[in-house]
């Protein structure tokens, strides 16, 4: 974002040079509260505990492997399960399961398609929502014309939009992306407005006494001031987007994780369900991590509160 100009070190003054190592050191300091290795260890332990419990239930016979196949079963059959991800050719006459891409390729194609829908949807929703939120506060008329409708529509469940998505966009990427956008947009507009209203009056007044115009105040004070909150909102909504995209895909899109879940349901294949859930979990986790890294880098001025809160 243009407003958060990182210092330019090219001029080579002694003072300016000192700042980048400091920033890097801070970044590492926040990460090194626990070392990366330790955190990976804890993650593995956390998942391992859950898996272990499940396997134990299977071992003592509480978990019927036909209904709740434990990880070693549904992960053990990855090779065959992967084939089912090739949903594109499923209904085509004259094609057997053996045709088309390999199991691994099928999984990758499916994952890529779903991820793309999530990200395009999230991107469109964020840009539209932040733009709308800022305009609502910037122009009174816009506020009066738009905000009531946004508030009215925001409690509507994404499921209710599903027919609309199909009416308008038919089948393909369109309805899935539309679903993600429509599920996130209204909340994000309201979140943006809340963030704007929370900007410290002092900061705005400082800019005003320095002769900043309304536009400059929005661009140089309000937008950077709401960035931390907006990135938090984005992170929350990343999970929302993953949930909604499955619903959309399970109905009318040729391929995608939602389709695979639907297929698993129709063919009574619990292993496939759990395998897909595992893939989604890993993806969600990975993207959340990426977003957190981005957050750290963009919001370098925020101190990390995690340890402080825990030490209370």
């Amino acid at each position, binding site marked *: 974002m243009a407003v958060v100009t990182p210092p330019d070190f090219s001029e080579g003054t002694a003072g*300016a040079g000192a700042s980048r190592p400091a920033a890097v050191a801070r970044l590492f300091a926040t990460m090194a509260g626990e070392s990366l290795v330790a955190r990976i260890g804890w993650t593995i332990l956390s998942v391992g505990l859950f898996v272990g419990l499940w396997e134990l239930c299977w071992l003592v016979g509480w978990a019927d492997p036909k209904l709740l196949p434990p990880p070693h079963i549904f992960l053990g059959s990855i090779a065959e399960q992967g084939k089912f991800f090739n949903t594109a050719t499923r209904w085509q006459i004259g094609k057997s399961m053996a045709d088309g891409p390999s199991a691994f390729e099928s999984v990758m194609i499916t994952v890529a398609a779903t991820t793309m829908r999530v990200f395009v949807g999230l991107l469109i929703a964020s840009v539209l929502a932040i733009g709308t939120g800022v305009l609502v506060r910037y122009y009174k008329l816009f506020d009066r014309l738009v905000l009531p409708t946004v508030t009215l529509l925001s409690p509507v469940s994404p499921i209710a939009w599903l027919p609309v998505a199909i009416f308008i966009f038919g089948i393909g990427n369109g309805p899935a992306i539309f679903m993600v956008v429509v599920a996130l947009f209204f909340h994000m507009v309201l979140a943006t407005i809340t963030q704007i209203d929370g900007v410290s009056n002092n900061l705005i007044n400082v800019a005003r*006494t320095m*002769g900043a115009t309304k536009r400059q105040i929005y661009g140089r004070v309000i937008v950077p001031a709401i*960035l931390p909150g907006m990135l938090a909102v984005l992170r929350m909504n990343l999970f929302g987007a993953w949930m909604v995209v499955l619903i959309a895909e399970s109905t009318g899109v040729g391929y995608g994780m939602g389709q695979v879940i639907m297929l698993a349901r129709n063919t009574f294949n619990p292993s496939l369900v759990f395998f897909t859930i595992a893939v989604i979990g890993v993806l969600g986790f990975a993207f959340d991590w990426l977003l957190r890294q981005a957050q750290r880098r963009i919001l370098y*001025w925020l101190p990390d509160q995690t340890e402080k809160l825990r030490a209370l």
Partner: protein
Amino acid sequence: MRSDRPIRFSSKDAVVCRGVGKTWAAGTRRAHEALRDIDLDIKPGEFVVFLGPSGCGKSTLLYLIAGLEDVTGGHVWSFGDRVETPSPQRSLIFQETSLFPWLTVWENVSFGLSIRGAGKEERRSVAKDALQRVGLTAAMDKRPDELSGGMRQRVAVARALAMRPKVLLMDEPFAALDVQTRARMQDFLLDVWRDSGASVLFVTHHIDEAVALADRVVVFTARPGRIKTIVPIDLPRPRNLFSADAEVLRIQLTNLLRDEVDRAFAEQEALASAL
């Protein structure tokens, strides 16, 4: 009724208030009179302290003089011009830190210049200059969260000075600092004030601070704030705050303030019991 009275003032005065009043949320059921009938003249280069019980409208008056809020009665002038909007000539410094956390110290200090579109070279040199005056050139490339409370307020002062204001409005700027830091900051502020030649309007509820700093102390009544009296502080500078004269002034101000604090309390209690 005010308008038919001829308004006289010197257009050279840094700030002139005539019949200034402010009612918050005027015309609604929550209307709330904060200030009434303020007449005040402040000379260029004068150091004026506002003293009064909390909630009497001192901050409100600073906001009106800064042009950040509109008066609901009377008028404010600064150097002969009506105050209607904020201006870089009149810088406001707040009690809580008001530095932009996403900018470095020098970027904060030169924020006003960047608003005007000044180039980086110019901004950095102006920032350096202003930071020199508050003794913080070494912290130029730090971020606000790396500084102590006192340092942050000095940066805020530097940011105000970088605009070369003719009037410095300070709203309890040292209230959040510990006693030792505050004493140092007062000395520092007096140096800055002498160098800059600006008028300073300084809000406090500390009588010691008023006696240490002011040419004149404006004592306010409880809400709605009016000027109760103006006490000149004719102590030679640098001041010996332990002198008998200083003690007399402190006692005088304490007595003036005590009545108003009592009244403010009584009013708040009446309000609370009416609820």
